[in-house]
Structure formats: C-alpha cells, structure tokens
C-alpha cells in the first residue's frame, strides 16, 4: 500500500501530534495554563507538545521503563502464602480478643469470630530464608528476585472501592488509573500499540469494572485498552468478514486521499490528524494481532508458562504480558478474578477454591519472572503482585454463624504485595506484622506510599507528576502525605 512517501509521513505525523496535543492535552488549555498561573508550579511532565505519546525520559534516573501489575481480584490470603504466624496457629479456634474488634468495621464478620491459623504449612526458601507456604513451589524458586512487603495497608474494605483506591489512588469513581498516569508521564514506546493494555482472566471483570483502567480526568488517549481472549483481541481490530487486508488498505488509502482534498479546502489541522490516525489504525490491526497471538511461541515457552493458546487464563496473560512489554507497551495490567476466599462455598474455601487458584498462579508467574530475566527485560520491567486488601486472621462467621468451609473476611489493616525487577532491591522482606498478622508493628506501607514508590522506580518525583483538574494539581498519590519506600529500591 502506498499511503505516503517517507517525507510526507514525517511531516504529517508532526502536524498531527502538535494538533492532537492542542486538542486533547491543551484542550484542557485553560486549566493547564491557569494551573500554571496559580503558581502551582508548572507540571513536571513537560511533554514535547508534538508528541504526547512518545517515550519520554523521566525526570530522574529510573530503572524501570515499564510495568506489569498482576492484580488478584478478590484479594488472596496473605496468611496462606507469605505471612508465617505460628502464634496464630497456636491460638486457632479461640475467640478473637476484643482489642481487635472494638471500633473496627468488617465486611461480613459479626460479633466475636474465632482466630484461625494458616491452612497450609510453611517453610523457608531462597538465600534469605523467607518464610513461604507450600502453595507456590515454582514461585519460591524466584523468591530471591522479589521484594516482599508484608505491611501493605488500605482504608477500604469492600472490593470495588478498594480496587479503585489501589489503581486510581481514590476510592471514588472518576480518578485516573496508575496505568494512565504512567502512560501520560512516559508515553508509549510503540505507536502501533496502545501504551496501556489490560488482560483479564478468572472469568469475570474486576469488581469495580473498567474504571480501574480508566483515564479519569486525564485525556482518554491514556486509558487502558482491554485485550480480549475471544473474538478480536482488541475490539474492532479485524476487518469485516469478506474484506481482505488488501482491500482494507485500499479503503484507508481512498479515505486518506479524499481527506487530503478536504484539508486543502478547509485547512482544518484535525483532518491531517485523522489521516494519520487511520494509517495508525491500519498498522495496529497487524501489530496488535501479532502481539496478542501466542501461536509463534516455541513449545518450551508454552511448557514453562503452562499456556494453552485460545484460552482465557492467567498463564496466557502472563505470556501475553511479556510479549507486550517486549514490544514497548508501557503498562500491562492483569486482573485475575476469583481470590475472594470467604468460605461460603467450595470455590471460595481456603482448602479448595484457593488451592486451585494457587496452582493456576504458581507456574505462570514464576515463568514470567524467569522469562523476563532470561530476555534481559526484568531489569527494566517492574512486576507487581497483590490484591486490593488482605484477609482476616479470624475465620469468617457470616451472619453470625459458623460456616461450612474455611474462609477469611476482607482485611484492610495488613496484607502482602510483592515487587520484582525494574529497580527493585531483590530479596528484601519489608515490614513486620504482629504475632497474628493483624496489623503492622513496623514499617507500614499505605496505598499512596506504594504509588509513590512505583512512580519513583519509574524515575518520577511523585509530587511532580501532576495534572491540573478542578482547581487542583491532581496526583496519583492524592492530597495525603506519602513516602517513597527507599528500602525497596535497589
């Protein structure tokens, strides 16, 4: 297909970008400028006005260039994976002391629940001898590569608000997700793919819906694009049945030719932008299809991840995540649904459903870390794993009665998140909770600290990655105090 000569292409691209920025970013021009006029110091992200999605050098030297965030929706039990609490096991079956209940709000626990020790045995692993349960035999081979935060805290104890908080920095709807912030701050390294892509497994959407990858008040160009396991891998990527790629090329060609005439006549720069966007869409049709097709992966890779092409699974998504970051996608967000181990039925029982989920998690996540490392990508790729909150050291007693299965309620006061790669200090175990794992006794990390640390690893001063909206220089970390957890930074 003969769309433009190389030269024309470059000129148009430049004009496109310049105009695009005016209309979208600076389409908030008044805000943008008045934000500056307010002495809210000029935003630290100084985009080249012509290239809003081009890769930027972050203001500080960041090790991480891209992010893979594995979110286990529903929130896995830290007490069955990373929190070794012999004292809790000893007290198992006893009434929870009042001090842990007074003035606290829980989602389902009522009155006085019983304490419950880990359902699974623990052992030490890796060079540093971190305690880990027997549920993650593959992952524990990589444990020296990761930094484990034992003392994550949130202030939300319901799924949807807690997921919003951990992804947008605010429990209410309408805020920008971390992925959109990072894409806004760093642009994309591959203009034929969206800068922020989302992969789902577990059969359901995250509880908070697609707002957890929304762009909120940031321009919509920064929102996450959901990849799909069935049908088009990105919505509307494939040509209609009966239309070949050649013919589609001819259509785009004709549109471009006529649009150029239109531009001659009306002089609207938006028309030039549109020509370039159609060309990009045409390229994206192949680029995104290729990126999201596992067929060309060798057998040993499939074996390592446990992937089965065509399926919707966490394993496939882990491998897809690697393919996407390899191609320069800035932020890859995985959501795996099904970790809400209340014990109301088999699928949410710690000794049944949770065990199955761990099996589906263990191999692919270990493979992802190994694969990234082998390809030399781990150094520059920040991998984050966690849920939206933790689970209670108490056994759930929904409705004030003993339940048929073992389960735990939502627990915002302490949970585990781990990070690896991209500038993270490997082998760190950070923070400490009390004897039953109820709350931190040392080094608590709240959500804005986590966000600040992620941004720091990417090379930003978290206080200066801002966007003016509704009278405020908005930040991912919100208006509350935050700290970068330096101990996690390598």
């Amino acid at each position, binding site marked *: 297909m003969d769309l433009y000569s190389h030269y024309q292409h470059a000129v148009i691209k430049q004009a496109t970008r310049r105009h695009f920025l005016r209309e979208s970013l600076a389409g908030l021009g008044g805000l943008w400028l008045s934000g500056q006029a307010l002495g809210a110091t000029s935003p630290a992200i100084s985009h080249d006005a012509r290239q809003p999605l081009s890769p930027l050098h972050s203001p500080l030297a960041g090790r991480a260039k891209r992010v893979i965030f594995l979110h286990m929706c529903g929130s896995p039990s830290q007490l069955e994976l990373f929190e070794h609490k012999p004292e809790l096991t000893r007290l198992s079956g006893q009434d929870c002391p009042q001090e842990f209940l007074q003035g606290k709000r829980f989602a389902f626990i009522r009155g006085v629940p019983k304490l419950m020790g880990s359902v699974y045995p623990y052992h030490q692993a890796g060079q540093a001898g971190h305690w880990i349960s027997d549920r993650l035999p593959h992952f524990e081979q990589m444990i020296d590569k990761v930094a484990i935060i034992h003392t994550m805290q949130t202030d939300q104890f319901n799924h949807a608000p807690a997921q919003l908080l951990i992804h947008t920095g605010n429990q209410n709807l309408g805020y920008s997700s971390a992925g959109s912030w990072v894409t806004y701050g760093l642009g994309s390294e591959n203009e034929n793919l969206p800068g922020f892509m989302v992969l789902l497994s577990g059969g359901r959407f995250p509880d908070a819906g697609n707002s957890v990858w929304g762009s909120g008040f940031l321009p919509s160009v920064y929102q996450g694009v959901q990849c799909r396991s069935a049908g088009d891998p990105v919505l509307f990527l494939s040509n209609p049945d009966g239309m070949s790629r050649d013919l589609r090329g001819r259509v785009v060609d004709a549109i471009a030719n*006529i649009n150029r005439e239109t531009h001659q006549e009306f002089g609207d720069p938006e028309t030039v932008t549109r020509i370039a966007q*159609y060309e*990009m869409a045409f390229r994206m049709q192949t680029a995104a299809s290729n990126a999201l097709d596992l067929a060309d992966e060798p057998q040993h890779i499939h074996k390592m991840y446990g992937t089965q092409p065509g399926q919707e699974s966490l394993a496939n998504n882990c491998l897809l995540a690697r393919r996407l970051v390899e191609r320069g996608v800035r932020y890859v967000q995985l959501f795996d649904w099904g970790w809400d181990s209340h014990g109301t039925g088999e699928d949410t029982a710690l000794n049944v459903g949770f065990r199955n989920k761990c099996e589906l998690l263990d191999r692919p996540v270990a493979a992802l870390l190994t694969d990234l490392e082998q390809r030399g990508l781990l150094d520059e790729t920040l991998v984050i794993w966690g849920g939206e909150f933790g689970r209670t050291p108490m056994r759930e007693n929904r409705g004030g009665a003993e339940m048929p299965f073992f389960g735990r309620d939502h627990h915002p006061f302490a949970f585990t998140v781990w990070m690896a790669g991209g500038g993270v200090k490997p082998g760190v175990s950070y923070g400490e909770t009390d004897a039953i794992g109820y709350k931190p006794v040392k080094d608590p990390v709240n959500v804005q600290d986590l966000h600040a640390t992620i941004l720091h690893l990417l090379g930003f001063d978290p206080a200066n990655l801002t966007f003016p909206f509704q009278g405020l220089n908005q930040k991912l970390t919100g208006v509350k105090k935050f700290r970068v957890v330096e101990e996690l930074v390598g």
Partner: protein
Amino acid sequence: MNCSRLIQFPVVVIVAAAISWTAPVRAEELPEWVEFNRDIRPIFAQHCVACHGGVKQAGGLSFVFEKLALAEGESGLPAIAPGDVEHSFLLERVSSEDEDYRMPPAEHGPALSQHQVALLLRWIEQGAKWQRPWSFVPPQKIWPTTVSNNEWCRDALDHYILARLDVEGLKPSPEAERAEWLRRASFALVGLPPTPEEIAAFENDMSDDAYERVVDRQLASPHFGERWASVWLDLARYCDTMGYEKDPHRDIWPYRDWLIRAFNADMPYDEFTIKQLAGDLLPEATIDDRIATAFHRNTQTNTEGGTDDEEFRTVAVIDRVNTTWQVWQATTFGCTQCHSHPYDPIEHHEYYEFLALFNATRDEDLDEEWPRVTVPTSEADWPRAAALDERIGELQREIHEAAMTVAGDEAEWHDLPIDQAKSTGSTQLRIVPATDEPFTEVVAEGTITSGSMYTLEAPLPDGLSRLTAFKIEVLPTDLVAAVRTPELGFVVSRLKAFLHVPGQKPRELMFRVAFCDEPTPALDPNDSFDDNTEGWGDYTKQNFPRFAVFLFDEPLEIAPGGRLHLELKHNRIATGNFGLVIRRGRFSVSGSDEWTALLSSESYASARRELEEAIAEREEIAGTSIPVIEKQSPVEARRTFVFTRGNWLDKGEEVLPGLPAELPPLPDGTAVNRLTMANWMASRENPLTARVMVNRVWGQLFGVGIVETAEDFGTSGALPSHPELLDFLAVRFMDEHRWSVKKLLREIVLSATFRQSSRATPALIERDPRNRLLARGPRQRLRAEMVRDQALMLSGKFSPTLFGPPVMPPQPDGIWRSVYSSAKWETPENEDRYRRALYTYWKRTSPYPSLMAFDAPSRDTCTARRIATNTPLQALVTLNDPAYVELAREFAERIMAARAEPREQIAWAYETAADREPRPAVVDELVRLSDAALAAFDAEPESAKKLADTREKFALTIVANAILNLDEVLTQ
C-alpha cells in the same frame, strides 16, 4: 503623562524606604485603574494563596477572603491598609531584598516581579478595592464599542465577536454555503444531518426568512429534545444501572424521557432547574415533577455485600452537592469538602450547610432504591395517578395524626417488665430492669445471628384491667452517637403475642391494626402480622429511637397471673448478611379506651376505607417504578455535621442548611430548604446560573465555550474569551428570552458568527488554531451519539421512535461480564436495533464501547464537557465495528435503489453523506475504490459474499464503509 508622574512618586518612596530598584517600573506600563480581578487576584493566586489561602492561612492571613486580607494578621500589622501604602505590611514583605524576610520564601517560589509589586502598590494606593471573583459579580449588559462593519452583524452577539476581531486585526470569514450552514445547524439543533430533500428545499428557498424558517422547523422537531437531552445526560450521570460491583439494572429511563419532553416543550431553564432539584417539594407536585427529581437519583447505589449503607449514602449525597455546583454554578465546590476553598471565597462549613439541604432525603443506598414512584405507562394516567398519590398521602397523614394523638398520652403506657428473654442463634439477650429508667429494656449482645427470633415473656402490669394496645420502642444502643452516625437498623418481620393464664390453654392474641411514628413508612407495621410480608423497622440504618403501636383485635380483659409471651422474628438482613434485629428494645402496653374509640369512629373507618381503595386503584395503574428524591419525615430527618477534613466518620460541629455567604442571599425571612435553594439557583440574582448555561450551549455549537473550562468558572478555571459577550448572552437569556433555551439557540444559530464558512487559511490556523476568536465558522467532529445517528440515517434504517426503555444495538460478545450479574445483552431484530444512540443501554461498569471510543464519558460522575480526541481506536470503530459494517451494507442497498449507474451511485452516496456535491476527484477516487472492490469480489467471490451477496452490493458496501469514515462525514 500625568498619570506617570503620579505613580512614580510612591514608587520612589518605596525605593527609599525598603528596596533599591534597578529598573523602576514605568508608570505607563501600569493600568490607570488597577482592578482587583484583572490585576491583583492573579498575583495572589500565583504567589500567595498556597500558604495564605483557603486551605492554609499562615499567620491568620488569607488572600482569598477579603475580611482576612484586610484584617490585622497575627503579627498585629495590617497586610493591606487601603490607601495607606506605608502601613501596608504586604508591600514591605514582598519587596524586601532580604531573602529571609521576603515573601514568598525562596523555597516556596520566586519573588514577585517589580511589575507585580508596582501593581499591588498602586492598587493599595487607590484604596485596595476588593472584588468578588468575576463570576460571582452579576452579569451586566455592556454594549461593545463601535465595530468596523455594522453590516456584517446580524445579531447583537456578532458585535462582540467583531469588536474583538477588530482589536486583533482580523476579519470575519465569508458566509458559508447554504448546505454547509444547514449541516452545522441541523447537528446543533437536532443532532442529525439534513436530508438531501431538506437541503434542496432550503437552497431553492429565496425568501427573506429562509434561514429562520429552517431553524424554526428544526426547533419544533421532536428530535430536538433528544439531541439536547443527550448533553444533559452527561451532567446528570445518567445510566441504566446502579453502579459499583454488581452494577444491577436500574429503571430510570423515564427521567431521560422527561428531559426530552422538557427540551421539546422548551421548558424555561429556571423551571427546568427547580424541578430537577426540588420537584417533589413543589405544591401539588405532578408525576412529571417527581420524575424530574430522579436527576439526583442517578447517583450510584452500592449493592456489594458487606458495604456500609450509610457510607455510600454519604458518598451519594456528596455527589449530589458537587454535581449541583458543577452543573448550575460551574464551581469546584467539592474542594471545600475537606477544607475551605483554596482560591475562591467559600468556607469549609459552608459545604456542609449546603449538604444539609440534601442530607434529609429518604434514600439510603438500599438495594431496593427506595423511595420510588410508579410512573404510569400511559401519560393520560398521570394526573389521576398524581391525584391518587396526593390523596393517599393526605389520608395516611390524617390517620397517623389521629393515632399519634392517642399514642402520645404517655401516662397510658405501662412498662412491660420482661423477665424472660431468649434468642435463637448466638445472639445473647440481656434484660435491663426498669430501675433508673421508666422502662425495662431488652438488649442484644454477642455475635448477632441473622434471622434471630426473640421470645420474650412478661407478667402483665399490675393495676391494669384490660389491654387495648401494645407498643415497641427501638432505641439505638448509643443515643448520642447515633444521631451523628447511624447504627444498624432493625426489622420486625413477624410479631406474635400469646396470653398465658394459669390453668388455661395459651391463647394467641390477634392484632387489628398498627401505626408507627411515621405517616408514610417504607416498612409498614401492619406488615408484621403475617409471614409473607416485609415487616416494620428502620431499614437498614437507625439514627433515632423509633416506635410502633399494635392494636389488639379486641380489648383484652386481664385475668390474674396472666403473662404475655411475645415472638419477634427478624428475617431481614442488610447486604453482607447482617441481621437487622432489635438491639435495644422497650415494650409497653396500654389499656386506654381511646384506642377502641378511635377504631370505632366513623372518620377513622371512612379514612381507612378510602385509603385502601385509593391504594388499590393506584396499584392497578400499570407503570414503571423509578427511584426519586423525597424528603424524610420529621421523626427520621437526619441532622448534619461538618466532616472533619472530609472524613464522614469524624463528625464535628452541627450545621443548619445554608447557602455560601459570598453569593447573593435569599430574600429576607426565607427559610433555607431544598426548594428555596432551587429557586435561588434559578433566580435572576444568581450570577452564575445563566452564564453557565449559555456557555454550555455556546460550547456545544462552537466546540469550545466562551469560558473553556465549562466546569470551572472559579479562580482556577479559565477566563472568558469574550467576557462582555458571555454577560450579554446571560442577561438576554434571563430577561429577554425568559430562560428559553430554544430562543437562545435560535439567536446563535442565525448569527453572522455561526453562519461563517469554516474554511481557514494557513495564516488564520497559525494565528488562531483553536478558533477562539471565531474569525471563521466552527468545524467540529461529531459527538459520539451523532456518529451513530448519522450512520443510522444514511443506512435508511433510522428509527424515529422517541422514548421508552433502553435498547441494545449490536455489540460484540463478551463485553458484559460484570461480577454477580446474569444480565445479557440481547440485540433485537426489530426497529429497536436502529434507535438513536441516546437510547442505548448504558451500563456503568461496561458502557457501549463504540460510544466510549468517541469520547462519551463513563458517566460515573457528572461530566461538564467532553474533550474530543482523535485516535486510531475511533477509526477501528467506524471501519470495523459490525454495527457500522451492517449500516454500510444497508446504505449500499439504499444507494442501489436510488441510482443505477455506478458513477452516479457514488456521487449520490457522497452527496447524501457529506451534504454537498462531490468534487470530480472525489468521485474518481471512490470509483477506483469500487473497481478495486469489484476485482476483489471476482478474485474470491465466496469469501466476499460474507460481506455482501452480489458484486455490485459488495463494491458499494466498501464505498459506503469508506464514506462513513471520511473527515467531512465525521465532521459538522
């Protein structure tokens, strides 16, 4: 020159006193009259308010509030002494050479420029006249200075545009060709392209009022209301689901239809405002008025298990406050939720005074979304339904009042001294004997099991010879704290009473009727008498003690030694399986004959009879039940407290309803309530309401508002590009158009400004890329809804049907996958497949993807303006979305029916879509495309037939697909 001398003097004084100017500011660089809003506020905003503003007031000093700026600070020295340069401490601090002394401190920002210092100086010298923020000053019509070309101006508004162009040395563009203007005007007014017939008729109409008649016809079109409702739906955060995790279905589309009717009827904007904010409080509120209040029931309801209904009720109320200010006042009032406004003169407590107006409504984040009104399907039934609702309310109040008169005789109530109390499950009951208090209490403790049934026993009180009534009073466990933050409520789903007399068989006592402390309870105590109903209670939260009175079927003669046994079932739960049980109850009995007298009175009996008939008649009217706003009855009316730093769990001082002090007050002696607030919003005196609406309309028509930040007219927002024009339009909207949106639109669409051609030279693009000066006509991409509606029109499948439940046009499988929902997306084969985009089912957690791609907001919260983007994902929608491919194929069939010869077919198709004759080059290009398509068909006919079954149709489908993607076609 005189002026220059005047200013130099004090500058020199300062130079001598405090600093040495290396380059004194030349007086002629300063305005003769220093104006606070223009010259001074920006200095304060840029350099000072971060520490001396609304959030922080270091040293007790704020440059946001006049009284604090002009007061003596904690230093005892006035920062600003009007007219007294020497005693204005501010000047010394900002101009000092000593870095440790100078403001702002170096670590907070750069020093003020000499020019800025000189402005401050002259302002103080001239008396330091403060001004309210520009948008808080009432708009005034100021006629523009003479313009270069009176002939050009068709409307008064054109003078303002031309005056500015004159200043900029620009000339307006020539008038657009008729078809270009008509396309633009059609999208502006009805959101649809004109048909070729309409264009032809207009082009051939040489009468003087051809333009006016076209506009009037479109304003009268029923599609007008659809186009403008779609703008309001973003503001109203309208969706067909409840939001959050489960995001279940919500019937609220009658509100969308209300908007369409209101715009079509050209309901004056003041009335439109009042109805949406307080339609329920209007005297003799109609069904229509009550539907309007659903505006504020578009907030989300959290049905996720284990969520606190009070928490999410509070979130909804905060949303209502912020949305109200956003929609009508373009003010970032939400900033004051945690502290005083950083830049604008609104104080923290004022947020909660305003919140108090919305806090005492009956909704409380319930899955059932009470209160609701059933909107009769047939509009003809509305007056009857409204009259019945009114009558039912009256009768309920009448009966209630009679019952409460009897119940209020405290002396007649005798404590039931409960001596046995048991519960099923793990719920523990403790009896607190009546020693300190006049009544025995039963208190529930331990782990409350949901579904707990209580069995209580008590001897009948001494000295009572007969029983006529039984009363349950349920108290919050902490009476004081519950007023601020409610406790979990209770529901008595089934009440049974038995009389045990020694030597006799226990006898169940039957009840005749029950009353509670509220005239129109959501949960009626009469429903506690059988097993199949809801029961009585405070569901799901309780602020205050509540009671209900149960009257025995017959007065009961008491035998000696008689004991009363009570069974109370609590079957209802709150989300998360929380048992709603009585946690603190008092029980008493009465032997008053007044009850017997009440029940046997004719007035009671006839009221009861009429009530039952009225309820039955109302229930027979079929309709759709939608959530609405209703105020709480006095017994349950919530009180409002300031949230310390915005935290709803940390409540501070109590506040009463009020309006911010910096805006004009209500007339003397007017109580502040939701209705008077709505009147205030819609009043001639409100400086913002009209400005915000005319700016919104302007933004729709020109792509950018006169104030670009349509959502923020405050200090942090943008300033108007044409302030006098904004004020002119606002005043005219109120005084001459009498708040008529149609008249406002008519005026703008017919103006010379709007009639300009949108053709632009490179020089003009360079000079004014975003067309803020309007030296050319507007050229905007279509709104998301218009992209689809236009394609529907071109396909010939467009359904002109108005109103009704949301529809499900084609959408790829697997989009709808929200948690715990079995709702399915099922596309019909009938005309509902082709309804206008605004009727598309809008699910909050997974909205219709192709609308999202074209910048429709998620509607999670109020969106005051859409920011248009231009992305490859949009291209993929109109190229490949099966919904658009289907419409391209239908368009191809239409083309084939219209013309026979290929070149003519293509020319016709282009003209129909772009509303103009094609240039030959365009036809050539499309003919080449068609030829390529024919070749593709011939090469692989079997594959090609999947798109269209014949050669000709295939080629035209390809052409139609291309046309639907042309810049001209996607643009108005």
